[in-house]
């Protein structure tokens, strides 16, 4: 065994539950720039994680009965035993629980927190000539908690080269505006721990 995993659940009431390797049946978590069809459709790509664990001490069953599972944050880490290196695989929001009363194995479906970007309002813009780079700087300039990073130089170059004379946009939410920017540059983005990673979709 060269890797051991650990999953931490943190609930809205600040209760934390750490599930260690011997209670983890399996998990899958994504780092996707595109959809499953690897299509060229631009936009922000939502990440997901599917987790199966043993509820050895009935912790999750009890919370399910108390209806207190909602809003759990899930952190998945893995440790390379050989190098003693910890790899952070991501932080997710639990979205769906599968808990049966007579089964100690439970399943959790998670998604990343990018759905919250629906609720981040981006105010309308003035008329100006802007490159995609300008749009990104304008958007993220007002969002100190977020940043962006190009995954390759060609993407950065493309974003500098595409310009929209007399550009403007109406007030909208962050997700909608990023998707519009993505179409302009044929870009894909995914979000991970405060950073939007950007690459070309074609």
């Amino acid at each position, binding site marked *: *065994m*060269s*890797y*051991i*995993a650990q999953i931490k659940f943190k609930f809205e009431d600040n209760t934390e539950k750490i599930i260690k*390797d011997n209670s*983890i*049946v*399996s*998990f*899958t*978590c*994504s*780092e*996707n*720039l*595109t*959809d*499953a*069809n*690897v*299509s*060229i459709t631009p936009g922000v790509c939502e990440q997901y994680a599917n987790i199966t664990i043993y509820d050895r001490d009935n912790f999750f069953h009890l919370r399910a009965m108390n209806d207190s599972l909602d809003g759990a944050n899930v952190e998945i880490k*893995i440790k*390379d035993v050989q190098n003693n290196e910890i*790899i952070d*695989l991501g932080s997710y929001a639990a979205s769906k629980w599968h808990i049966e009363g007579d089964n100690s194995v439970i399943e959790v479906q998670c998604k990343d927190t990018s759905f919250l970007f629906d609720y981040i309002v981006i105010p*309308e*813009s*003035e*008329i100006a000539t802007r*490159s995609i*780079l300008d*749009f990104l700087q304008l958007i993220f300039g007002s969002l100190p908690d977020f940043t962006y990073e190009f*995954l*390759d*130089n*060609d993407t*950065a*170059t493309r974003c*500098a*080269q*595409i*310009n*929209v*004379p*007399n*550009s*403007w*946009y*109406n007030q909208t939410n962050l997700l909608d505006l990023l998707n*519009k*920017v993505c*179409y*302009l540059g*044929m870009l*894909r983005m995914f979000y991970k721990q405060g950073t939007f*990673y950007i*690459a070309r979709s*074609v």
Partner: protein
Amino acid sequence: MSDYKLLSSNKYRKGMKWLQVPENKIDTVVFNPISNTFTESVIVAEETFNTVTVGSTSLSLPCSTSASVDISNPSYNYYESWGGLLCKGNAFMKKARITHTFNLENPISGIPVLKVILSGKTRRTSRGSIAFGTMPSYDDSSSSVANFIDANKNGDDVEWTGDSDIKLYSQHKINVCPWIKKYQGYNDSTVDNIITRWHGQPQAGVLYTQDNPNGSDWNAYSQSGHASVYPNPYYPPIDWQDANPSVYFMPKKYEFILNVTRINGRQFSIDIEIPIMFIYTAASRMGSPSAGDHRPLIDSFAAYDLITSVTVQLIGTTLDDSTTIRSYSLDKNGELTENVKNKSPFTFNKNELITLESLYGLNNWMLTMGKYILTEYKTGKYVIEADIDARYLIENNITINTPLMIKNLNNEYIKRGDRICLFEIKTIEKKYKDGSFIYSIKALEASYSTVDIGNIGAVYVLKPLEGETVALRQAECLYFNNTNGVLMGTKDEQTAQENTMLLGNNIALPSSNTKLGNFLLVPGKNVGRKIIVMLKTEVNDYDNQDLDFIIRDGAHGESIEVNEYYSAINNQKQGKYFVVLITLTDYFIENAFGVYIRKNNHDPLNVKEMQLYNAGNTDLTAQEAYEWLVNNNKLI
């Protein structure tokens, strides 16, 4: 070391799939660009107000006629003895303020024009039918006059928009004066002879241009020496011709306040002050004041206007966000055509960032991006799926978007023709079970390819940048810019510098119509990396001393001539080859650099073809590089 990672079949934990995904074929692109052009004189905002502000008090329209007025301009009972004329009147005006901020959906350019439309109603007496003595006096209050009009009104109130027949509100300034017009005959009542009809222009402008009218009321003014009798240049030349030459009056004028302030491109505040009530009375008859009311009436009239609502329009230069559908496919020559196939379309829905005028470099965005997508996806893309031990990918720093060369289960490169396909990982599912950590990847064929040159490393093949094929022939010099990865042939050095030696990321690609070389070199800017430049000319074209190979620093304009280059004639290929090795250094990477090749007498180059190869950090000499190219059948 190559810039690309190699994924060999021995790394697959669970097979691999190699799919040329038919869904990824695209034969048509459909755009819905918005016009985004400025349109003149468009009403960008409109608001109708039924409430105004007087002082700090909100007031609903129409206001009460008993409300206080701001201007009162009485025409005192005046007797003109030699003409035997007696006249009297008064005019009242009440003003109010409206402040408001408009929030526009779409931004506009500059400050809009403000247009105010007053809607109101007029109540009036019957013209010339009320006896002089019955009409209000100059010292009656405004509410008293209004009550008189209410008691003696003739017919229903007249609703109007814009201008009443008493005042021209659309002039945005009104005269507040009771003017009595004398007729030679009795009660001549054509429309033009309505008493106290004040025309704003040009009469009022002429009449009231006196800078400093003396006297605070009519009486004082009449004694001031500034009062005038007709004919007089201060009197309006038209419409007053029948006026009694001895009628005095006090000119008073009210100009609307119409301010619009730009807060930003979408927010504009207005601050306007307008009349909301105008009351008027005037009468005249023949005979001295002592004469009874039986003396002939010349005219009499009283009326009031009440503003019922105020409509404010902002008229601006706005952006047109209408869309037009544009669809393109490729014709047999690989050029865009509007004769679309539409079997596998890719559609761009309306998006305010995608406009007819959007640019990709100096070229139209829609045409450039459309051609690029269609060219890249006309035959679909290879998609590789494989399960790989996570350790291998982690330790080799292979992650999303990492470029890969991939070998299939037969340990052969996946190719298109003689080109090795390059892939970029687009999805990773990180799977953990029982201590086993697997990455399931999907890698998509990249938009560039390479060929294997064994121990030298990957060869970077010059690829037309998004469809623009350009003849390098007839160019004087060839430039490769390491910052933006553009190689071009240009007619002269100055053009090359203007187009390629700019710093930073904001480098505009040369437009297609310049007919310059315009090629994209796959980026990869490792310090110490060597680039083999291979140039093919006609056999008899150049001697060694004819060409200059120069590395030029873009920031400082410093040039370093490359002395070590090799040339040889290859009869089998019927060409002469020039090979030079260039090493990238920190200095040039930081400051942008160009590989600059020219004929030293500045004649146009006659280059048949050119390729740049990545030689990694090999120690090959130019001659060894040439020999390797020959031995591996790489000569172009």
